[in-house]
């Protein structure tokens, strides 16, 4: 009796009890469909987050001013204690900080023709683009020469472009920033939101921002790029010791600045998402186990119903192993078909309901089939042994 014949026989027997077979198939299908779905959604979300993390610029710390101390008294406002020199200091004082970018940001209206938009005006240096891993859709970022000359040039964030231009190239156009004309030289690719919207900004040279727009000589923040994410603790130590020394803070005084990880927010989401996915996988696996128990149940009933058949087969020369294989094949096919329906059902569901053609990883499809067939086999072992070890005469006499 070869495999093909066993399969045919198994199909015949499953067909003989269509209702029961299909009920159990539905159970299996739902189980495996759920598992696959969770896996795919999980992988998609992970991918999404990873892409965003990459866009945000990795390993970047953001330093912002905190409450300052005067004569041992804490000031009531976050004040003016970060300077451009300090930004350069940090780089020379630390081995693990590979680059810093000084920032000055303030609110301001921007206007083009009849459109006005209230946004964030950020003065910075050409290095900003590099450290933040920014990409330009069009044009270029401003360069060192423009920075030195306090040039009136600007680079638009995606949201600002959307509000002022909607479509068409903005390059070469003149917009008003806080009522002063600026020439647009670049347009940034959208990054997506994290805790703030980085796309709702317009970038100008730091010198221009400090001297011509806001009239200040301090910074509102510094971005510091670490060599690797593992350098976090050392970088933090270097930043703290440098800034505390510069600000002449005595030991009993707290920091008058704050350091944040840019990617912290997303990393947290990623962790949570991973845990959630694992939790759902556990639930889905439970439903698979339930499916397996269902198969075992069906097989036990099937064995009882076919005791006479078993007797006949044994009487005319079937060995125990033949009976064993017959029943295990049957339950394996149940599992396999369950998997097949689950996978196709899941794909169809994804296609029509979620509307996204998930690239279901091929490796997961094959895993699913293996898992389903495996569940079928395991579920069939006990019933099959019961069938094979039945007494021949008693089976023949069974009514």
């Amino acid at each position, binding site marked *: 009796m070869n495999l093909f014949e066993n399969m045919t026989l198994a199909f015949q027997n499953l067909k003989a009890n269509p209702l029961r077979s299909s009920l159990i198939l539905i159970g299996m299908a739902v189980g495996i469909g759920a598992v696959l779905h969770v896996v795919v959604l999980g992988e998609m979300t992970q991918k999404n987050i990873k892409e965003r993390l990459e866009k945000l610029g990795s390993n970047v710390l953001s330093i912002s001013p905190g409450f300052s101390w005067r004569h041992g008294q804490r000031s009531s406002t976050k004040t003016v204690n970060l300077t451009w020199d300090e930004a350069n200091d940090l780089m020379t004082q630390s081995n693990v900080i590979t680059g810093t970018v000084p920032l000055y940001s303030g609110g301001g209206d921007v206007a083009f023709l009849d459109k006005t938009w209230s946004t964030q005006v950020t003065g910075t240096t050409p290095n900003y683009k590099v450290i933040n891993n920014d990409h330009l859709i069009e044009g270029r970022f401003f360069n060192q020469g423009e920075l030195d000359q306090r040039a009136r040039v600007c680079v638009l964030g995606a949201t600002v472009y959307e509000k002022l231009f909607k479509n068409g190239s903005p390059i070469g156009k003149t917009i008003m920033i806080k009522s002063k004309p600026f020439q647009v030289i670049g347009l940034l690719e959208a990054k997506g939101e994290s805790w703030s919207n980085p796309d709702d900004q317009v970038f100008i040279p730091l010198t221009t921002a400090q001297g011509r727009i806001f009239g200040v000589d301090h910074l509102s923040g510094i971005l510091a790029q670490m060599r690797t994410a593992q350098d976090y603790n050392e970088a933090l130590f270097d930043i703290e010791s440098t800034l505390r020394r510069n600000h002449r803070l005595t030991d009993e005084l707290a920091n008058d600045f704050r350091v944040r990880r840019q990617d912290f927010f997303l990393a947290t989401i990623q962790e949570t998402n991973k845990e959630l996915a694992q939790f759902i996988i556990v639930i889905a696996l439970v439903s698979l186990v339930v499916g397996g128990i269902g198969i075992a149940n069906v097989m036990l009933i099937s064995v009882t119903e076919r005791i006479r058949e078993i007797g*006949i087969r044994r009487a*005319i020369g*079937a*060995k125990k192993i033949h009976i064993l294989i017959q029943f295990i094949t049957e339950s394996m096919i149940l599992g396999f078909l369950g998997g097949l329906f689950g996978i196709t059902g899941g794909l169809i569901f994804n296609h029509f309901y979620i509307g996204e053609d998930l690239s279901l990883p091929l490796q997961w499809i094959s895993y699913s089939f293996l898992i389903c067939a495996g569940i079928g086999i395991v579920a069939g072992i006990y019933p099959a042994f019961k069938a094979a070890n039945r007494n021949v005469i008693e089976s023949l006499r069974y009514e």
Partner: protein
Amino acid sequence: METLIEMQDIAKTYTTGGVEVKALSHINLQIKKNEYVAIMGRSGSGKSTLMNIFGCLDTPTTGRYLFGGKDIQKLNDNQLSEIRNQKIGFVFQSFNLLPRVSALKNTELPLVYTGISPSERLKRATEALKHVGLGNRLHHKPSELSGGQRQRIAIARALVTQPALILADEPTGNLDSKTGEEIMALIQELHQQGNTVIMVTHERYIAEHAARLIRLKDGQIESDEQAIV
């Protein structure tokens, strides 16, 4: 003629609910190749038990059973299955066919377990069914056939492996007398073609077809005689 079956002091005891039932005791006999043996006896006298032991479906509690010179007690389950498959053809009172498959599939079933190729199986099963007069019913299922036709399938299935021994336990028990006679004629024909046949029957006139008659009473051989031909 060569001895096919030899039984030495065979006994079979069933224990149900603490009560021992001696289904067979002190059975001594020899059956040669190409014999035609009828077994008679009242209901409960042990005929089926004896047939099951002949057919290696069951093993005796004590005694020695040699089939084709082989001591059956020394064989394992696989070897017994092989003997049942290759050397014995069993015809039961209740037909014992698989209900959902065709006459052809039922007939070729023993060959499936012998490991014969599908095409060869088909050929032999068709031949066997033609032999029992069912050449035009190959694809009918048992439920679509009469009792006599069902028993013919069972006989074809018993024949298809060309076994050394054909066992028939009340093969006409579920049939009307006319159909029963046709089946008897068929079995007799098998004997004349050189098969060894052991048959259990209630009917005296059916037993008369046989050349040898063994009577059982309370699990023992009451008489064992060659019929006067």
